[in-house]
C-alpha cells in the first residue's frame, strides 16, 4: 500500500518535473525521425574491389562474360588512391559496384583508401582461392556477408569454394529478413530512449530529492527506504514503457512480439535505473555526479554505436552490460529470437536483485547525507 502511494506520488512529481518532458520530448523526436526522415528502405550502393590473379586469357574471358551481362554496365574509370591514379574497370549493377583492379598492389591500395574489403581471386592446385583484404576491424558477420554477397553477386564464384569450411556463412536472404533503415534504427532508439536516458533521469530524480532533503524525511516514516527506491524505479519503468511503445506502435503496428518487448523493457529499465540509483547514492548533487554519469553513458552506448557502424564490432563490447539490451531490441524488431530476449530479461532481473540489495544498503547508510 505504501508502495502504491509512493508510486502515485512519484508519478505526480515526475509529471511536474521537466526531466519527464525531456524523456517524452526525446521519444517524440525519435518517432518523427523514424517516421518522416528515415527512408523506409535501404538504398546504399555496395562497393567491392576485386583483382583476378589468373592467367590473362581466363581473366579476359571472365571480363567479357561480365561485360555482356545485361544487369551489369561496364566502364573504365580512374580512381585516386594514396596520391596515385589507378585505372580500374567498373561494373555497375543494381545496388552494387564492382571494381576490377589491375594488380594485387592496386587492390590493396584501393581497399585501404576506400575502406572497403578487397578480394583477390587466384588459382592454386587447380582450385580457385579467395584472399580477402579486410580493414581489420570488421565483425565476422560482415566477413560472412561479403562472402555471401560475392557468391550471389557475379555468379562466377562458387560460394562453397569461397568459404573456408570452418566459417559459418549467413546471408540476409537465408534469414528471410531484409533490413530497412527504420528497422535498423528503432532498436537503437529504443535503447537510447529507455536505457541511456533512464539512467540519467532516475539519477536526476534522486538529486532533486537530495536537494530538498526528502530522503531523510522519508526515512523517519514507518515506510522502508526500499519502498522509496522501488517507487522511483517503477516510475522510470512506466515512462520508459510508455515512450518506447510510443516509438514502436506507430512504426511496426502489430508486427512485433509485445509481450517480449514489454518484458525486456521492464527488465532492462529496472537494471539501468538501479545503476543510476547506485551512482547517485555516492554523490551530493548532479554536478558532482556528472563526470561518472557521462562516462557511463558513453560506455553503455558503445554497443549501440557498434551496431550502427557494422565494421566496428570489437569483442569486448559484448561484455558491456548494455550489449544484450541492444541485441534484444534487435531480436524483437528484426530477427525474432525470443529465447535470447527471454534469457537477457532473466539476466537483467537476476542482476537487478543483487543491485537492489546493494542500492538499499547504500541508501540506508547515507540517509543523513
Amino acid at each position, binding site marked *: *500500500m*505504501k508502495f502504491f*502511494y*509512493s508510486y502515485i*506520488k512519484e508519478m*505526480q*512529481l515526475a509529471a*511536474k*518535473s521537466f526531466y519527464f518532458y525531456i524523456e517524452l520530448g526525446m521519444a517524440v523526436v525519435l518517432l518523427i525521425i523514424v517516421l518522416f526522415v528515415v527512408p523506409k528502405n535501404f538504398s546504399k550502393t555496395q562497393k567491392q574491389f576485386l583483382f583476378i590473379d589468373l592467367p590473362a586469357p581466363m581473366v579476359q574471358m571472365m571480363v567479357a562474360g561480365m561485360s555482356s551481362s545485361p544487369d551489369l554496365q561496364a566502364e573504365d574509370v580512374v580512381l585516386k588512391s594514396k596520391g596515385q591514379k589507378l585505372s580500374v574497370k567498373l561494373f555497375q549493377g543494381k545496388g552494387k559496384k564492382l571494381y576490377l583492379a589491375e594488380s594485387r598492389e592496386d587492390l590493396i591500395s584501393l581497399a585501404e583508401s576506400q575502406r572497403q574489403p578487397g578480394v583477390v581471386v587466384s588459382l592454386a592446385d587447380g582450385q580457385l582461392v579467395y584472399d580477402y583484404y579486410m580493414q581489420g576491424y570488421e565483425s565476422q558477420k560482415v566477413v560472412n556477408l561479403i562472402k555471401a554477397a560475392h557468391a550471389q553477386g557475379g555468379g562466377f564464384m562458387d560460394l562453397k569454394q569461397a568459404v573456408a569450411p570452418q566459417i559459418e556463412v549467413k546471408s540476409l536472404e537465408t534469414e528471410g529478413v531484409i533490413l530497412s533503415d527504420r528497422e535498423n534504427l528503432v532498436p537503437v532508439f529504443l535503447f537510447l530512449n529507455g536505457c541511456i536516458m533512464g539512467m540519467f533521469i532516475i539519477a536526476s530524480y534522486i538529486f532533486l530529492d537530495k536537494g*530538498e*532533503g*526528502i530522503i*531523510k*524525511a*522519508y*526515512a*523517519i*516514516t*514507518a*515506510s*522502508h527506504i526500499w519502498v522509496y527506491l522501488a517507487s522511483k524505479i517503477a516510475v522510470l519503468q512506466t515512462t520508459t514503457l510508455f515512450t518506447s511503445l510510443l516509438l514502436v506502435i506507430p512504426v511496426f503496428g502489430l508486427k512485433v512480439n509485445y509481450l517480449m518487448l514489454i518484458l525486456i523493457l521492464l527488465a532492462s529499465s529496472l537494471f539501468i535505473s538501479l545503476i543510476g540509483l547506485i551512482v547517485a547514492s555516492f554523490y551530493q548533487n548532479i554536478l558532482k555526479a556528472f563526470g561518472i554519469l557521462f562516462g557511463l553513458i558513453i560506455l553503455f552506448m558503445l554497443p549501440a554505436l557498434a551496431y550502427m557502424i557494422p565494421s566496428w564490432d570489437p569483442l569486448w563490447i559484448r561484455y558491456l552490460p548494455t550489449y544484450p539490451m541492444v541485441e534484444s531490441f534487435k531480436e524483437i524488431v528484426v530477427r525474432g529470437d525470443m529465447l535470447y530476449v527471454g534469457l537477457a530479461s532473466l539476466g537483467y532481473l537476476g542482476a537487478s536483485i543483487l543491485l537492489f540489495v546493494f542500492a538499499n544498503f547504500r541508501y540506508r*547508510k547515507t*540517509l*543523513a547525507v
Partner: protein
Amino acid sequence: MISVENLKHSYKKNSTFAVNDISFDVKEGEIFGFLGPSGAGKSTTQGILTGLLQLQHGKVEVAGSDVKKFKNKMYNKIGMSFEQSNVYSKLSAKENLDFYAKLFDVKTRSSMELLELVGLGDKAKIRAGEFSKGMKHRLTFARSLLNNPSLWFLDEPTTGLDPAIAADIKKIIRTENQRGVTVFLTTHNMQIADQLCDRVAFIVDGQIKLIDSPKNLKLQYGEKLVEVEYQTNDGSKKEIFSTIEAADKKRLIEVIDSSQIVTMHTKEATLEDIFIKVTGRGLS
C-alpha cells in the same frame, strides 16, 4: 525514553569526533533541551537517535529499542522536525502532509488541522516551493506531528521564525508535552530552552558539560544581580551589581549612599549567562 551511553561519532571515521563520548538519559514525559553553539554536535546526536546516522560507538536506546535494531514500525511513535526544512516543493502544503500521513501505520492527524495549528491554514493549496523559509519550516514542523508521536525530536524549531510565530510554536510544544509527549529539543536559543525545558544539557565540541534543570542551574550558578539606574552629573547611568561578590556589594552601597536612585531591580542570571560561565563559550 532515551538512554545514551558513551556515544561517539566521527563523520570521517577517524579521530575527529563530532560527538565525543556523551551519555545522558531522557525521561518519559519531559522536555529535554540539547543546547550548544553551532557545530557542537547537536544535530549529529539527534541524527543517531533517530536512526538517520548509523551508530558507530556507544549504546543508544530509544523508546525501548536499541537503535542498531530499529524496526520501521518504531517510526510510528517518533516525530522529527528537521533543522533544514525538507518538503516536496512541487507539492502543495496539504499534499505534502497527506502523502506523509500514508507512510504511517497508525491513525494520523488531519492535515488541515495541523496546517491551521501552525498558521498555514489558508496556504494549504499553495505549492511548498512558493513558501517563504519560515513557512516551509512550519510545514516541516507540522509534518512531524502527523503520526501523534510519543517521542518528538525538534531540531531548532523556532529558528528563523518571527517572534509571534515562535511563540505559537512554543505553545504547541508545551501543549503536546502536557498530553504526555516526550520532547527532545535541540536549540541554541536559550530563552526558548529556559521557558520550555525540564532539563537541559550543555554541549560544546561534542561533549556534554552539564545536565540539569534550568531552575537548579540558576540556583546553583545564578548569583542574584541588582540592576541600578542612578543620577549622575551627566545624566542617568545603569549598572549591574552582584549581590554576592564583595567588591560589587561595596560599590552598590556607595552608589546608594551618594547618588539619587532612579530605578533598582533584582535580576536573575539568564541561562545564557550560565552557559557562558560553565562552558567558557558564547552561544553564537
